[in-house]
């Protein structure tokens, strides 16, 4: 028991060395040291291509290291945050911090599962926007006031889980 205690004392000894505090000039406002840029990315650029130096070659001379770049895809399909590691004229090393794919457009066919159809069936309470299963023409959802609501109800239904 006493041996372990003395061991602990020996281990704590180097931890007692003096901590050098940060000097006042080490801290600044983020705005005065680094910039935060916002970039519109063409829709054909993917996540891998985004990190390559060639994409930023024209604009990279305005970046400094530790700048952030907010990337907005032009078709609003995704949003990403980049951290500039190193930049100069014609090259730019960036790190992908975050990448959020934005929700799919419900109105388009990409949100609709295959084999279903959505139609407007008139103003009655149980008509309006309806979803049909094309295989047997069963009406899955009816009475929704908009196409989005009908599609959301269809995606919630138990047969598609």
């Amino acid at each position, binding site marked *: 028991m006493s041996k372990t205690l003395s061991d602990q004392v020996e281990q704590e000894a180097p931890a007692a060395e003096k901590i050098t505090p940060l000097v006042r000039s080490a801290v600044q406002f983020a705005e005065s040291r680094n910039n935060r840029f916002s970039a519109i990315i063409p829709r054909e650029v993917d996540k891998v291509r985004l990190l390559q130096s060639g994409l930023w070659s024209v604009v990279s001379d305005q970046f400094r290291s530790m700048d952030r770049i907010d990337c907005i895809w032009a*078709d*609003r399909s995704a949003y990403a945050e980049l951290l500039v590691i190193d930049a100069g004229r014609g090259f730019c090393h960036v790190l992908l911090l975050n990448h959020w794919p934005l929700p799919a457009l419900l*109105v*388009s066919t990409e949100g609709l599962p295959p084999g279903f159809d959505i139609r407007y069936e008139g*103003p009655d309470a149980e008509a309006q926007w309806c979803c049909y299963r094309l295989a047997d023409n069963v009406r899955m959802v009816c009475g929704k*006031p*908009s*196409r989005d609501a009908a599609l959301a109800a269809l995606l919630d239904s138990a047969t598609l889980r």
Partner: protein
Amino acid sequence: MNEADKACVLRHTAHVAKHFIAYRGSLDKLVELIRYSIGTAAPAPEDVAHFLRCESTQKLLESTYETALWCSNDHTKSWRLICLATTADPAAAARLLARKAPADACAFCWQQERGWSDKTLVPEQDVGGAFVGAVLLHPTCVRSWRRLRDLVARSGEPV
């Protein structure tokens, strides 16, 4: 009017909007069209007119029933009923986007605002906040127009 009547009027207003796509005229005529769509069970005309004048009704139509209804600010004080539903076909959307609207008309609903286009229409902005050409839109039509743009952009076809 009870709740069932109100829901019925909302549904038939959306139906009339889908039929005419973009209507412009007096409120009396609009009420007549909606009551004709409902049929014999229609509420009294003054009740329908009062219900349509309510701001809550107009907001509900725009947010839930994909239908815009408002009274214009210009000297004609005409009522507008616009169907905000968009197509799901990217090719059709591209065709709609390629049409050239008159200079003082909304590009989505094509209703002309003679002499008032600077006050009632807003220029279209792309995702970066830059102005797109000379496209002018009603504030209510912006969302549907933007949705057509996104539909075409994500399908990968040239605009």
